[in-house]
């Protein structure tokens, strides 16, 4: 995949946002959208967890933090803008090799939630498709003991850099509203990060790819307007 400049990335992001929200104008002309008691916007905090982060090699906080702003476009359709922050550290050591990877980053994304037939957004079972743009820093450090006669040598290698990738995912969730204000949702998703390499991605890519392949989340939010 070609490397994009920052300006190109921002441009693409803006275009995606614009496409998403032109639906808003279109939606106003079709069926009546009542939302929940007239409120069509909400903000949620979600905490994601992946099975990969439960591996003993992954240290630190296995949860990622996501803020999602939703707006109901049609009776059974809502769009969202998300921001996520994550940080992982993968430490593996044995007698002869010490390997550390660390990865931190952010993502911004767009998602569309379709609600099951018979339901009205934002209450009930929904199906989501989302795309994210991931960017951040990684560092890798390996220290290996190589046995030679008469003296062993220690070889160290370290690597640092920035990364950026696109990811997409499919999610199933249920959203409920309590006290006419508090939003609660729970769900699970499967996805993929583009450009990590098909065969044996290494280093931070392992973590990133593994993390986005299967995730579960719990979220709480509030209706806005």
């Amino acid at each position, binding site marked *: 995949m070609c490397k994009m400049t920052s300006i190109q990335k921002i441009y693409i992001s803006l275009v995606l946002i614009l496409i998403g929200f032109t639906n808003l104008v279109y939606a106003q002309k079709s069926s009546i959208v009542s939302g929940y*008691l007239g409120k069509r916007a909400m903000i949620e905090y979600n905490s994601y967890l992946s099975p990969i982060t439960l591996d003993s090699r992954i240290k630190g906080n296995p949860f990622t933090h996501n803020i999602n702003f939703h707006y109901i476009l049609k009776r059974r359709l809502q769009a969202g803008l998300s921001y996520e922050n994550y940080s992982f550290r993968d430490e593996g050591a044995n007698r002869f090799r010490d390997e550390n990877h660390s990865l931190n980053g952010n993502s911004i994304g767009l998602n569309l939630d379709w609600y099951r037939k018979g339901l009205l957004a934002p209450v009930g079972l929904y199906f989501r498709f989302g795309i994210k743009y991931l960017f951040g820093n990684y560092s890798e450090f390996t220290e290996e003991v190589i046995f030679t006669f008469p003296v062993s040598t220690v070889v160290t290698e370290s690597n640092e850099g920035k990364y950026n990738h696109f990811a997409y995912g499919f999610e199933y969730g249920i959203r409920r509203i309590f006290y006419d204000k508090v939003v609660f949702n729970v769900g699970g998703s499967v996805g993929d990060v583009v450009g990590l390499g098909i065969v044996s991605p290494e280093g931070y890519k392992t973590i990133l790819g593994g993390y986005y392949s299967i995730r579960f989340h719990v979220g709480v939010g509030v209706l806005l307007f």
Partner: protein
Amino acid sequence: MRLFSTITLLFLFQIAIAQYQPLQSSGEIPENFTTASYEKYKLELENIDRKAKRRTRKNQKEFILESNFGIDDLLRSGLVMFNDPVTNYINDIVDVLLQDDPALKKELQFYVIRTPSVNAFATNQGIIFINMGLIAHLENEAQLAFILSHEISHFTEKHALEFFLEKKTLDRQNNKGLFKNKNFDNSLAKNNFSKEQESEADELGLNLFLKSNYDLDAVNGAFDVLQFSYLPFGNIPFDKSYFEDEYLIFKEDYQLDSINAISLDANDDDSESTHPSLPKRRIAANEVLKDQSTSNRQKFILSENRFKDIRQKSRYELLEYYLKNYAFYEAIYNAILLQKEAPNDLYLKKIIARSLYGLTTFSNADRFSEIFIDEKEVEGEMGSLVYFINKLERIELNALSLRYIYNNKDDFFTDPIYKDLVKDIFQKFIDDHGGKLYKFKEGKAPEIDESSLVKIEKPVDEASVKKEIEPTKETETKEKEKQKKGDKITIEIGDEKEKEEEVKEKKVINPRYVYHGFGDFLADKDVQELFQECEKIKQKKKKRNEDRLKLSAKDKYIKNGNFTLGEKKVLVINPFYLKMSKNFKEPLLIKTEKAQEKFTDKLLKNADRLGLELVILDVNNLRKEDVETFNDLIEIQEWFGHQMELEDEEMIAHNQERINAIAEKYDVDAVLWTGVITGKVKKTIMDLYVKLLMLVTVYDWGYNLFVPKGESIIFSLVLDMKSGKPRMSTFDPVKYIDNNDIVNQRIYDILNQIKRE
């Protein structure tokens, strides 16, 4: 002096009836109507015998629950009145019967049900219902007193509860032991038990009756009334000339030659009945009566005039019932019966007009079979009327309705609704027969020499001649009795009904009398303009239907979410809530009642959010001073039921003028009926298994594991109060139980569509 006062009373009576207004409840609403069923249930539970067996206590609890909720449904149905003249009269008679037992009188409440069936029944709670049809048939006050005594005995002996417990016992036996055979019908045992109770009520009722000074002949008189209860209250001949005039006449063969004789079913077999046969009841009663003194006994203790007034009111009131239930034949015949005493009564003419309008509507809509009565199944003179109506061709029925109203237009048109009625019938006429208008002629129908026409030949059929039964021991001992029901009917007992053979008719060539039916008003300018206007409307309807046919199925109907009614204020009637048990087997009565209370609050809160004004009329939520609301609710309920029954057909409701007045009173154009039906659904192993396989929805499976699976339907229907046409209709099944957020969201959505322009 007596003759003078009688004549004066009759004269005043006629005036009073000529301005007849349908009966309404008045005063304060009794506690029975306003107390929540659940409260009554809790109160009655305290009376259960704690020492009784567990199963008996459980059955008693079930009985109390079902009976309280069932009775309250009836009380709030709109069929039951209170503080009306008929109910007050009944209470006065009970005062006479129970003057020595005021404690018992305090335990009882009496209400009248507006239905024509000849019946009365008592409940365990002390509420005794008398059907208006019974009062319409009675001949004197003493007969009513006897029937009331019978019903009071049912209450004092707790027959309703006893029967329920016995039924439970029999049903339980049916499902185990000797009677495990599911085909075994234990209804015989139930019927026998019921008959024992009826006999006991007869006996004890008679004892109570005998303590009063009422005439003893009333007992057999009451049995006579029950015997002929399936007949109208009178039996006068009907002639087609009733509907004819110099312009509109009908074929001779529209007049029935011979009616079906009124017969008495002599079969004494009451094995399949819940009541002993009438002959048996008479014998038992006469056994007691034979030793009683008949002196100083009266048919009327309160007042003969009052009885006749009440009976007459009941007969008039039932005309509304017939109209409401599309029993047009009965409405016309009973109106004709009442015209015997009040030939110029405008109200009766209006009933006939509306009945003819109803018959026309159903006929033109190809729905005549829904209201049809077969004259072969009608006994007595009413058969002639039924035969006449059935013989009418559609165009003749249309013409007859038009003509009848137009003939009376000077009287009718003071009421604006009748102008609408005329316009509607004209429209129906043009829609169906407009093309034949050119055949209609001015002037009177010519005189036709019927003898010159080919006549219908009826083959002499020996099988149709009454068979003579060879005298047997039974028939020898049984004498033919001629009984008189007042001065109205004559019946014979003893023989089987004769069988009728089909009669083959030959085609008759006759002129079409109907084409002279508008002979006098065809040249009328107003009529011509009306016809032209209706023709234009017909063309518009045709175009609209053609355009509609071109639409796809998707676009034919407005979908939920696309309604924009633009209303600022709307009337809401009887917000509905129903909670069902698992898999929707039966209603959960107490939970339903509690949910219903909260549902009204939800409606008001959501309407507030939208700035939509709601006027909620809820029969489950009335205070004792809300009698006006109660009466309004009855009218709207009946009107609403009419609109739902008719579906796509247009027909002005029997009480449309009162509905117009209600719309004006509350300043609304539309009425909303909305509700929720919800229930849990049993999760099956297959549900969980399938969800386990679907990994993508693994948390949906997890969710369902902890959250009950259910289904809910949230519906709404908005009708225009002037035309009765539906303006909005939504029906949303949701695969969840009635969670607060789901119900709130849907209600808001419904009200939003009503408010949005």
